[in-house]
């Protein structure tokens, strides 16, 4: 493979490895992973449980530290940066969607969606305007003042998606976003995710167990025992 200059990949890993020392033995969660994701590409990561999918996604998002190798986001070496720069990246370019939604339990739906903007230092009225717009887009208009606990799983994940999109990230990382949901809800959520990212030209990397879901992607990447098995 050659690297085309001037058009960096949205994401790229080079010989990425992550080992966990568990006292008596070592778990090789990822070993020598080389992955490139084009801008605007939709990639599905599949593989058996314990294969290393979540580990890879966390490393792509700057939420962990590799044992060896590098991760580039938009051509910049993620783990060579200072923590400050990484924080800036999380606020702007990277967006996350979690399997367990991970909404802040004490904040209302609106406040949850506003939160990334608050952290980024936006003015209150701007935050509210953007967050309200996104909540309407994900179909939760009118639920602004609900607490996460008061919503269904599907609704909570809609909030999670809105919270992810509100900062207009260029890359969206989703770890089994529908893992806890039934099939009907799953379809709706995936459709929402697909449309929303496509409209905005966002790059989407999504971990899933479900081959049907994976089929929605431009490309499927298989991970087993910490190693990459690329197809087409």
């Amino acid at each position, binding site marked *: 493979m050659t690297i085309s200059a001037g058009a960096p990949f949205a994401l790229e890993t080079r010989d990425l490895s992550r080992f966990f020392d568990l006292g008596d033995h070592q778990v090789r969660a990822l070993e020598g992973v080389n992955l490139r994701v084009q801008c605007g590409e939709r990639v599905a990561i599949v593989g058996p449980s314990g294969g290393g999918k*979540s*580990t890879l996604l*966390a*490393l792509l*998002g700057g*939420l*962990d530290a590799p044992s060896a190798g590098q991760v580039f986001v938009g051509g910049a070496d993620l783990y060579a940066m200072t*923590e*400050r720069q990484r*924080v*800036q990246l*999380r*606020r702007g370019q990277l967006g*996350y969607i*979690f399997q*367990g939604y*991970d*909404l*802040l*339990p*004490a*904040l*209302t739906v609106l*406040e949850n969606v506003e*939160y*990334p903007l*608050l*952290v*980024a230092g936006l003015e209150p009225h701007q935050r509210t305007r953007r967050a309200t717009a996104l909540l309407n887009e994900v179909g939760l208009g009118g639920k602004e003042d609900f*607490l996460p*606990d008061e919503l269904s799983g599907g609704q909570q994940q809609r909030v999670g998606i809105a*919270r992810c999109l509100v*900062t207009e990230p260029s890359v969206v990382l989703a*770890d089994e976003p529908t893992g806890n949901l039934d099939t009907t809800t799953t379809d709706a959520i995936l459709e929402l995710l697909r449309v929303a990212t496509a409209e905005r030209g966002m790059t989407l990397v999504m971990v899933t167990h479900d081959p049907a879901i994976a089929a929605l992607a431009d490309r499927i990447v298989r991970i087993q025992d910490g190693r990459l098995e690329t197809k087409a």
Partner: protein
Amino acid sequence: MIALFCYAARGVIRQPLQTLLYVLGLTLAVGLFADTLFFVDLSQRDMTKNALAPVQVDMVARATTPDLAPNALEQTLKGQTLVKSAEPVAVADFASLSKVGAGVSSAAGRVFALPQSYYQTFNFLPIVAGKFDPSGAMIGDATATQLGIKVGDTLELKFAAGITQPYRVRVSGLVGMGVSEPLFFNPDPAGGEGYGVVADVVFLPPATFERDLAPRLSKLPVTTSSVGQTGSNVVLLPVERQVHLKLDQSGLNADPAKSLKQLDALRRSLEQPFPGQVRVQNNLALRLGNAKKDILAAKMLFLFLAIPGVLLAAYLSKYAVELSSDSRRVELSLLRVRGAGMKDVLLITAFTALLIAVLGSVLGLIFGAATLLLTLGAGILTTANLELIAPSVGWAVLGGFALTALAFLLPVWAQLRAEIAGARRTVTRVQTLPLWRRMNADGLMLIAAGVVLYVTDANGGFKPTGTEGTAVTLSFYLFLAPFLFWIGATLLLIRLLDLLLTRGAKPVARVLKTLFGEFGVVAARGMTRRSNGVGSAVTLTALSLSFGVALSLFLGTYATQRAGDIAYIVGSDVRVTPPASANLTPAFADQLLTLPNVKGATSMARDPVALIGSEKKSVYGIDVPSFLKTAYLPNAMFENGSAAATLGALAKTPNGVILARDQADKYDINVGDTVLMRLYNPKTAQYVQVKTLAVGIYTYLSTSSQDADFALNRDFMTRATGTSGANLFLVKTSDPAGVTVSIQTQFGANLTLKLENVLTATKVDSSSLTSLNLNGLGGLERIYTALIVASSLGVFLISMLQSRRKEFGTMRALGTDDRQLRQLLAAEALSISSVSLAAGVGIGAGIAALFVMLLRVIFLIPPAGLTWPVTDLSLLLGLSLLGMGLGVLLANQALSKLRVSEVLREA
């Protein structure tokens, strides 16, 4: 069974951190409980000593029949164990006493035949002029002054009808009678009046008495007289033979109950050789009985002071148990999979509780012993002391087991039952209010506290009981009010917090936003929507603080009271009493003023036999300007609330008089009334009538431990009576010990001065509860306060970080940086700590105020209010704040190290 026990033991060993958390609170609780008990145990010795200190004549053996040989009694008693010295005393009454050649004669009085050794063995009969002479007599100094008798004069005694011949003897010396009460002490065995002080007394050498008087007086008839409230008949012998005993008090047990038994055995062994002929009066027993009651009261007081701390520490353990409920759920399901039944599971937890109780008690005792040694020094390690505290060790262990049952076993069993019954709690949205809130227990408790307080007060429960030598009776109800208040205030605090957090969400958010910006709002949301957790954190911290604050305030006030009481007894820092015969002038005060470190000196005249109507009163003459500068004069002692105003009014009115409240009541005197009194002129032996004007009323006047009924201007008094007006002197100084020494070296050579100062003076006639050294206890409990506050903070922080890892992880993933996280933590910590601090100080002050009411019972001068020991309190609050700050820093540190990927893996 053994297998189950082993399983429990393995569990305790395998999870050291968990075990430590359970045991931490218990260790502190047992340690504090044990130390409190130990402290009282060790105070017993001091309290007993203090109670016995004023007793001069430990036992008096009285012959009840005239046929006992004079020496037989003395000889038998001398050899007994514990008896240090035995002095024979013969007593007879005379009808009158006069100076040969003078017209005045005294009323009826008493002759004592005392050997020379008596004056050395007991030191309450100082020879102030002349000397003991085998061929002469000595008389009381006041009588001598009154009758104009001097050393070398001859006096004449007349006796009851039947003896016509008067008895004449030369006077060889004068005896100071100021503290002579022990000579007369003869309590009615059936209760009632203690002293039978006789004013006019003649002392004869035993040989003279036996030769000249005993043969004649013995012929007089034996009479009986009914005495006391019961009117029991007492045989009065014309010549009464007594033996006064001084015991080796160091041979007595420090525990008053045990030494009482010891003394009773001694009394019986003294009476035994003389069946029906001798009655032994046990003067020590009376005081010991009081000491016993005082020690019980002290135990109650200390325990009530410590109970909040003990409960709080135990609550820490319960908190830890609550925190670990999830892991217990997992363990339980594992056990059930392996086929363990309900009974097995309950047994395993019971065994675990047993192990924890043993561990907690042992660690608590070790910790308690260590802190005790740290605060009181290694000097307390004696076998006698170990024997004293042995029972308390048992109580402390028992307490440890009880607390384990409360803080560990019951909550765990409750959880297990619920689990097994399948009533697993999911998140319950519909909150049922706890029972106490539905019952309004907080309000009821506070009302009950108020009612108990009111009823106790109305029944005189807070009036000082301090008549001479009686024990303070601290009724149980005195402790009930603070206890109810404590519980009520705690519950009220929880209710108010809940209200604030649920109803007051908006204002809380607004306040925090102005203080901390946007993250203040996030913090506010977090706290208001997690009201239970925040509520218990605030409650725990507030209560720990209130414990420290209450203690500190109580100890501070106690110290002030104690110092005040002693200063009142002494009058100022040092009191100088010259003998009655010294004839010093007020100029002596000026001499005292020239000594180094003396800041003030004043002289006072004292007339103990002035008359209002026909009643004897003690009237003082004071020199207002120097008195104001020298005497201890808290405003609370004066009815108009100002020492300066009252004394100023006296100074402005030459014939002014200020008087004690009880005298004002007795004679219905108000300020502005004219008071007629007769002052005694010792030179002419005549009374002089003076017309005075009442200008002020006091409850207490710092003059001496004898009551000052009235006080006049000294110049007015000397002009009226022609005396010099310097019967005692007060000295103000910052160095009482040094000044006492320099007075003694400067003037002691020529004068027998009685010197007392605030350091050496003990309150002879008050409860030993006033002389406790509470500093040791203060130091001890301070250590525990700090530890309890620190541990509750620590446990709270750990649990907070633990339960909110996911939340913080998410926040980081969403781009929250360290500074923002710090803001969030600071906003939370500051709100929690400021509310805790305010509530802690409030509740603490409330409890202290209630406890200080107890001091009204104990001390002479009622406390005017709480003493706020500023350094102590700021240290406590400062340390707590420091601890909180440190906690936030550590938490922040831990959070910035948090691996987001790891946290997000957690379900």
